[in-house]
């Protein structure tokens, strides 16, 4: 990606006026600092809380822990239930992402590169699926999940998550496929490749960055999903995912174990943050190609 910074590059062209320049620089860095503070401070505070005990958190607010302790983290890592919810979340999200990418890339290829009757209808039907609030289909889904005898298992989540990941995947990937030059297929067809070979051997590798981006976004969506997970795993703790576990941590009532909860928040956010850090470049590249044409 050839990033072309807009504002910075023309600073060299301006007549050097030292003082205004200096003030501008200072203001710019102030802005950066403000943004950094705005986005990071709450999470930093979460980390700070996670080193205090419940009793301390309930009594007073402090910017930094008075005597940092690891007790919350110890509790969490010794809590096999919590570790299982981490496993459940990883499992459900990964399967959902792989499924959505495979199935979605098929559909996206058809919608993005092939001219056929009914294309627009299919495209808009898929888009319409994203217009429904999750909550309004909850009871209908509940009936299906019950009929299929998968209520209370991670399978119920794997079965239902494509409702929101699949249309999204299809939508973003379609615009990627549309962006690729048409010569690719023509060359392949001249070489005697079948349409499926063209798709699988040539186009899919070309869109690998897009697949990574879409996959990551879908992963985060599935990892963060709360409502379906809450409803379909209500009766069986063994299938619960991380958001449900944290929201229900220590039950209800006045003595909510705040510090434990926040420590859990920190732990579950770290994997996603690591993923975002690794793929940060890719995400922006991917969206550059996808969002604009949308």
């Amino acid at each position, binding site marked *: 990606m050839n990033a*072309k910074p*807009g*504002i*910075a*590059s*023309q600073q060299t*062209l301006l007549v050097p006026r030292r003082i205004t320049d200096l003030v501008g620089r200072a203001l*710019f*860095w102030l802005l*950066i600092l403000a*943004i950094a503070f*705005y*986005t*990071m401070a709450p999470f930093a*505070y979460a980390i700070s809380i996670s080193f205090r005990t419940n009793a301390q958190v309930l009594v007073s*607010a402090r910017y930094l822990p008075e005597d940092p302790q690891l007790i919350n983290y110890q509790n969490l890592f010794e809590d096999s239930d919590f570790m299982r919810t981490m496993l459940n979340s990883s499992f459900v999200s990964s399967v959902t992402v792989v499924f959505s990418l495979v*199935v979605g890339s098929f*559909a996206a290829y058809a*919608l993005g590169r*092939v001219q*056929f009757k*009914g294309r627009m209808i*299919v495209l808009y*039907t*898929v888009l319409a699926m*994203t*217009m*429904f*609030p*999750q*909550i*309004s*289909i909850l*009871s*209908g889904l509940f009936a299906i999940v019950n009929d299929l005898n998968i209520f*209370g*298992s991670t399978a119920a989540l794997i*079965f239902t998550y*494509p*409702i929101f990941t699949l249309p999204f995947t*299809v939508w973003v990937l379609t615009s990627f496929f549309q962006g690729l030059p048409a010569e690719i297929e023509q060359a392949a067809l001249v070489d005697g490749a079948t*349409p499926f070979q063209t798709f699988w051997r040539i186009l899919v590798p070309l869109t690998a960055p897009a697949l990574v981006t879409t996959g990551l976004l879908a992963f985060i969506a599935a*990892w*963060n999903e709360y*409502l379906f997970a809450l409803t379909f795993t209500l*009766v069986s703790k063994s*299938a619960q995912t991380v*958001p449900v576990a*944290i929201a229900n941590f220590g039950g209800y009532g006045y003595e909510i174990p*705040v510090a434990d909860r926040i420590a859990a928040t920190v732990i579950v956010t770290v994997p*996603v943050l690591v993923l975002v*850090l690794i793929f*940060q*470049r890719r*995400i*922006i590249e991917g*969206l*550059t190609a996808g969002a*604009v044409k*949308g």
Partner: protein
Amino acid sequence: MTLIPPSVGRRRPSEQEVIAVELISGLLMLIGLFAFAYLFYAIATNDTIREATQGPEIPGVGLNVVYKAPEGEEPHFELRPIEGGQAGASGIKEGDWLVSIDGEDVSGMSLAEVQARLEEKDVSREEDDFEITIGFLRPKPDGTFSQQERVVPKNVAPTLTIAYLKSFGFVVPLVVIGLGALLIRLGNRLRRYDIVAARWAIVVFLWLMIGAVVGAIWAFWVNGKGGLVGNAPFNYGKAISRAVPYLLAIIPLALSYRWLNQVIDEIFDGEESLMSRQTRFAWTLLVPTLSVLILVAARPLEQTFIKSLTDDEFSANRPARLIWFDNYTRLLSFKLATVECKKDDNGECARSPNGSIVWQTSSVEEEERNKLREMSSAERKRYARYSEASTLALPFSDKGLRILGKDPIFLNAIGNTLKFTVASVILELLLGLIIAMAVNSRFKGRGLMRAAMLVPWAIPTVVSAVLWSVILRGDQTGIFNKLLMDLGIISKPQQWFSANGPWMASIIAVDVWKTAPFMALLLLAGLQVIPGDLYEAAAVDGASKVRQFFSITLPMLRPTIAVALIFRTLDALRVFDVFQVLLDTTRPSMATYNYNRLVLTRSDGYASAVGVMIFILIFIFTVLYVRFVRIERE
């Protein structure tokens, strides 16, 4: 049966090949017929539909009555609950003496009258409460009686329409019938040695095979696991026995697929246009996505619409009734009235301790009160009256405008959601734009900064709501209060989420913090494709930075902004997690109101109507946006 030979085949098929083609086309037609047959079988054997046509197994309260007039005893009606019926389950025992039905004394009635009463045939379905209160005397061993009363629910069959709609609906039957018809037609065309049909047949066999494999795995797993996962050992016997039919079905499919592939260019004939070839290829690729969407999304969506027309309730001991648009009228009926404020001693409007104006009751509320006074208690129970949703103070007067509704909480939910959506989307756009522009310029640590701005977005919404509920605690222990007090901005702790506090602003702030980064991300992507030379040229021409922003950045960014706005608006209209975690149930968003109705009061039909309302609102917004984007592009 006459076999039609190919007209101008590439080569005449041998006798065996003719038979093979016949067999394969027969197989296709058979599968099509099987789809029809299975649909009708499913409808015919469906429990709910059978109950609707034949009545429930044990109708009514499940109670037989015998008239007894033994010598030396009073004549009386003896109760005999039918085994498995509702009366037995409610605690009525054989030998109890019937005293009253729904509060009415039975002495003096004939046996036929009593039986008719118990069946309640004369009660129209619309007003039936689906239960009967039975008073009876229970003989004790010492010869005395204890007087008792039980409320017994009635087994009533649903109407056929409801039974069918709730069990099958429209989408799945139509899809099954359509596909079945297509398969029969395909089989027929295959017999005419049409190469297009043969190619379609290959596609059909391929997907049927894949479907059978998936079905086998599914049957193996679902039947093997006993009950909820992990509660029982895996039952391999049952699992294998259920998976085998699917595996067996693969054999003829695979044979047909292979054979057709081998001979397709030799014995089949005809021309195929590029368009039809592409169409087939596209639909082949679309099969999995469409089947997932039909399986997972179509039915629930359709069910939501159907249920919203009924008074369905979870775990209620009665069938749902079709009430058409009653749910919607109840949700949406509202009245407006002007109200005067209560005057204090100085002749000014009185204010409550938290600063809000104290209003008098409105004319509508008076009317409703009078209406209620004239009603019987049963009517009063059913009647939904208009009550206050909210009151807006009119400027420059002592009057206020009061909005009253039959479901005031829902009216407020609409207001809350719209307020939330407009404010949060606008703020997100502004903040997102600032962040995106800042992060787009070149400076040391830009990569790190870009990752940092994604932190809020990476935290699960419900989890970040929990985090904010800690940060924004309403007393000394909230860090935000402490920060503001240390900075000298406020002098005493602020209640951020209390009903009298700035709760809407707090909710919006939490949501903006969470989603502005995503907005920034989308906008950053848009900024990156604006060519840098545009700015250079503008700078050479002496355009100021402000000018550059308004005449280059904004216009070039417009499509991206439009897409980002659509995404965010739709999400904001569906807002759920922050309201659910941070506020109580009296201040809902539309989605949390839907949830509360479903989970707390279990009124499925009513909740579905709320869901449909959300959908309609989102639909309107989408259409508006799509229009807007189109106009901008052309």
